[in-house]
């Protein structure tokens, strides 16, 4: 259950973190989409490891959920969704 949730919640977080990076990098996000894809897969692997590692089950999962919320909030301040670079 813990591994499943870690696996599930790590994907949106890694995607949103990569989105924040795309917003921060001064280059059109369209021009390095493949690198973003590779970055998402690496981040996803890393997050699954970090969340599944601690001895206690719920604190890392709750932290993951909170991080997802924060990343989503931060993404709303960018013009990426439906917009340009």
């Amino acid at each position, binding site marked *: 259950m813990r*591994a499943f949730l870690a*696996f599930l919640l790590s*994907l*949106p977080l890694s*995607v*949103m973190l*990569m*989105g924040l990076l*795309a917003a921060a990098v001064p280059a059109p*996000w*369209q*021009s*390095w*989409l*493949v*690198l*973003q*894809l*590779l970055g*998402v*897969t*690496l981040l*996803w*692997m*890393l997050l*699954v*490891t970090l969340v*599944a*590692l*601690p*001895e206690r089950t719920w604190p890392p999962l709750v932290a993951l959920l909170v991080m997802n919320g924060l990343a*989503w909030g931060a*993404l709303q301040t960018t013009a*990426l*969704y*439906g*917009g340009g670079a």
Partner: protein
Amino acid sequence: MKADRLRRFIDLHAWLGMASGLALFVAFFAGALNVFHHELHHWQTPQATEAASQDAIDGQALLDRVTDQYPDARKRLFFLPEEDPAVMWFQSSDAGAGERGAGEWLTAHATDFDEAGKYVEKPRSALADFINQLHYQLAIPSGGLPINLGMTFMGLISILYGAALFTGLVVHWPKLRKEFFALKHEGNMRRYWKNMHNLIGVVSLPFHLIMSVTGAAMGAFTLVAVVLGTLVFGPQLRGVIEEETAVWPPVQSQGENAAMVPMADYLSAAADALPEMSVDWVEIRGYGDAAGWVDVAGSVPGYVGHHAHVVLDPAMGVLNVIAPGQRSLNFDSFSPVYSLHFGDYGGMLVKGLYFAMGLLGALLFVSGNVLWCERRSDRQGPSRGSAFLLRLTLGLCFGVVIGVACSFLVSKGLPYTPWAAWVATAERAVCGVVVVLLVLWSLRASPLRFSGLMLMVAPLCYLAVPLLQVVLEGGHALEADNLLINGLLLLVASSLWVVRRQFRKRVRLAEPHPLWVGKVTQGHPKHLTETEREAVS
């Protein structure tokens, strides 16, 4: 590192490995053979068909006939300029496909036409395609869904695999040098197998890192793109992906016709535009349409990301050239992902290395699963779970190894029988049946006896394939690509024989773990693993 932290890393590494190990075994074993996909295509062609190809029409006549007889082929087709040229196209369901299958990709070879010039479908082995599908989607059918289920599943498995590599790296990094020289048994065969698992993992770590990242990127592409579009970029992402990965925009037909020039002229125009490219295939969109285009695709040797395209208009004008040093960052990043995964960037030497690493990878996963089951039983006492997983591992792994060998035997033997028309179906069916039967058998049999028997049968199966080809086709078995594939199959047979020898040595020198003889009792002692003991001390 503190002992409890190290132990958590070990536990996570073992759990992730166990969760992904069986699927990865199938992918690596089939992937090792799939490195020689092109050569396997030649191997699967029976001698009689190759002889007929000498009297076949040429590639241009094939192209003309297919585009005349099948209007769907004019929308989009792939031309493969090989010894026996082939044309592939998508036959849509509303195009009056007649007796040919509608709603699927069709392939016509130059040898597939009768004297009247009418297309006559001939049964052909599809072994290379089956091995390829077994590699990247475990041969799981998608059932008409918009997403490739098997491929996405393998993408998710690759994420777990990558996480297992991270944790394995943390566990083994501090004693990397020691483990490099640790392959000795000193009377302790269990330790020998554990050392072998560690050694293979350490030696092939860069290869596994490449496989996990590129496998995850390709397998989970659709899923990641959907989440990326939903959360970050919005619906515009789909159009951007199409734009950034297409060699030229889709055809916007104005209904104006254009005369197509012979294929040889397109190839020569592409050679003028990019002289160092060797051609692999040609894609034509809008055949005979003034807005159509011809993509001559191939490789530029000397680069890891070697893929190249020359896009021409119907009158041979150069529309676009995509090659190393002349392409966007997206193409520059994507090309190495493909070539690093498939090992097609460094000739036979790199292909041979990928083949060896693939087989070693398969051994790594099966040994990892066996060690996990034994360790779990040692630490937590007897459990049905450990016994079941050990038996499932053995049944599935031997099932796939022997099932694939049976597919090879069917591919070579069936075309010479009255059931030749069923060859493509039989290749898949026999593998599936063997896997199911051996899994069921392994769940009932003693693992020790089952493994002993399977390790005797499996090498003989791989030895039988080249022998069958020699018997049926004589000297044809010794021609370039056939010789290579037969040599690889003999290498697989020898590798399995070496595993058999080591397995028997383990049985002879060390008392078998109770799990292997189905006698896990409460009295069975619990003990820490080597790594854990070292960490504690």
